């Protein structure tokens, strides 16, 4: 079992947990993820390693509450334990580039943060563009500022930062003459797709972090497969980072929705259960 050392609510739908998991912390690198099960009947879900300390064996995860398993996870309190927690999985991000732009969308910021931090520590000049729907959803602002040379905050409704999309800011920077060696985009698939459309125009190498549905995370099931150029890749072992100019985003979006009706049903059931407990 893997003890929850700390639980911190970052915004109404996003929570951070620090887990005791020395086998994961020992070798974790930016861009890698874990797979957890909340309890004995639980499903296996992947979450990015937001931070890891090999000395203390502590691993941080930041998750958005979107469905049954993340709801169940969020029911757990400090001092309780998770059934399973395995990693680090996937390939570490390649941390190369003198001047890079890290783009995070929504909870994707949780995944983008360790990458921005790694670039910062490697001596790159880091511009960070983060986007949220509104003010209430902003996460990791201080953390990003600490590792970014430039930090741009965007919101859909203008309630915080600048009103607009991350792609608006990216294009603006490029047009103002900022030259990026590399763009790293992490967030909803649709956002990554649009970032890539911009960077393709300007020929800027772009890395995206894909989030297909996974089970084992070791290359055994093939459920996480993606079309990248002419090849089929398993995101859990070949990724999750890929060349954004080669990824078939439409197919990836479609595959991510494979269980949408099941998930909705499970979510509703879980909400009902919680409501019954409250009343």
């Amino acid at each position, binding site marked *: 079992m893997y003890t929850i050392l700390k639980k911190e609510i970052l915004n109404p739908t996003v929570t951070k947990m620090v887990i005791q998991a020395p*086998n*994961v912390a*020992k*070798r974790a690198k930016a861009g890698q993820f874990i797979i957890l*099960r909340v309890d004995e*009947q*639980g*499903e*296996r879900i992947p979450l990015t390693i937001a931070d890891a300390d090999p000395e203390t064996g502590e691993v941080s995860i930041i998750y958005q509450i979107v469905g*049954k*398993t993340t709801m*169940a996870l969020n029911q757990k309190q400090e001092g309780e334990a998770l*059934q*399973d*927690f*395995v*990693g*680090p*999985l996937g390939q570490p991000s390649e941390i190369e580039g003198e001047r890079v732009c890290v783009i995070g969308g929504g909870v994707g910021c949780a995944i983008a943060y360790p990458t921005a931090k790694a670039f910062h520590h490697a001596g790159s000049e880091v511009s960070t563009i983060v986007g949220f729907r509104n003010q209430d959803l902003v996460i990791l602002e201080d953390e990003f500022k600490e590792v970014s040379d430039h930090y741009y905050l965007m919101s859909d409704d203008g309630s915080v930062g600048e009103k607009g999309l991350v792609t608006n800011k990216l294009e603006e920077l490029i047009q103002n003459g900022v030259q990026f060696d590399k763009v790293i985009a992490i967030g909803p698939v649709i956002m990554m797709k649009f970032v890539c459309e911009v960077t393709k125009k300007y020929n800027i190498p772009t890395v995206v972090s894909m989030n297909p549905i996974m*089970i*084992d995370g*070791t*290359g*055994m*099931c*093939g*459920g996480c*497969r*993606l*079309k990248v150029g002419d090849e*089929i890749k398993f995101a859990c*072992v070949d990724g999750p980072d890929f060349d954004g100019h080669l990824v078939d985003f439409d*197919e990836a979006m*479609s*595959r991510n*929705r*494979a*269980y949408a009706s*099941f*998930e909705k049903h*499970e979510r509703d059931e879980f909400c009902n259960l919680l409501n019954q407990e409250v009343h």
Partner: protein
Amino acid sequence: MPNMSPKKVEMPVQEPEVRIQNFEEVAIGYTPEMAKEEAERCLHCAHKPCVQGCPVNVNIPDFIQQVKEGDLEEAYRIISLTSSLPAVCGRVCPQESQCEKYCVRGIKTEAVAIGRLERFVADTHRKENDAPLERPISNGHKVAVVGAGPAGLTAAGDLAKMGYEVTVFEALHVAGGVLMYGIPEFRLPKEIVQAEIKHLEELGVDIVTNFVVGRSDTIDSLIDDGFEAIFIGSGAGLPNFMNMPGENLKGVYSANEFLTRINLMKAYVPGSPTPIQNPKRTVVIGGGNVAMDAARCARRLGSEVHIVYRRSLEELPARKEEVEHAMEEGIIFDLLCNPVQVIGDEEGWVKQVECVRMELGEPDASGRRRPIEIANSNFLIDADCMIMAIGTSPNPLIRHTTQGLEVNRRGCLIVDDQEMTSREGIYAGGDAVTGAATVISAMGAGKKGAQSIDAYIKARSNS
């Protein structure tokens, strides 16, 4: 006077109409009377032809003799001398191409039901005499095992019995390998696998789950941590696809994914948080055990099921019993066909599978007649689910993260006749070495690996 009946005593089974509604075991098992009657069919041949057909040389005539005499504990002891998973092998060995193939009774009539008797002996032992095992005295030497499938578990058990301190590192959240995630409950109840694993723990084997060797830590750092030898039993779990158009549509699964969702994650149990599609019409590609298991699972989810296989019934590589059971369960065999593409609907789901008809030509390298496409014979099968069961390869993770481990063209680890890899002190066996094979051969490799590791460590500590 032996029982000269030409037929095996029939195995009681759940009726097909009933069993396609549940995931409980299909074959119910012999009663003591049935076992005795079947045992009487064995002639106790002095030259023991059946034994040579068994990859671990179970002393078949002697254990069957004990069944005749009613001493089932002694029968169990005899089997255990060479096999560590009798309840498993009695159920899943392809007996018709192994032990039973060489049985003299099989020349003119049906062979003695060796597998069924083995299962009976092991099940009786588990129900009536399953005392905890005693932990052997430690010899102070540490050995690591990678992978908790039949190869790794057997190596671990044998080494622990010799006094080694064994740690098994398993990537998944439970031990058992294919026995847990691949082979379905209705063929191999998971409780039986877990009973075997409990015995290993009684012997002092430390099973560390959620540990992916190559990621959580490397082989080389395990050696640095003081493990004097390593046995790799990481299996052949990487699914193959055909790379045909439409293979990434929703509703197309590898057999590994489909079976893992069902067996490991129990997606068929109502309320399970792991989803599985509820297919109406499923096409399974392939003709091995994996294809049969996937097809029969889909059937139990309420689907009509077609097996598409490019050769004919005779060449089907699956166990005979599995093919018969699948047919009884109403699974449709579309033989001498091969898929060429998958056609999707507007929402990205499988809608149809386009197949082409095949005919058999000259025998190929494997001795089987090679299937050849018949021109212009394409046709469509309506389906909302398709399962690819066309084989698996060894996962490259370990060889990519370990220097100096040699592999062959197919990615299988190369070992010498002592099961040692190209790296001293690192041994390997099972599907990781042979490619997808059988439980009993993986178990045999685990036994041999354990003996070689013992000899290796003894030689080292004496010098």
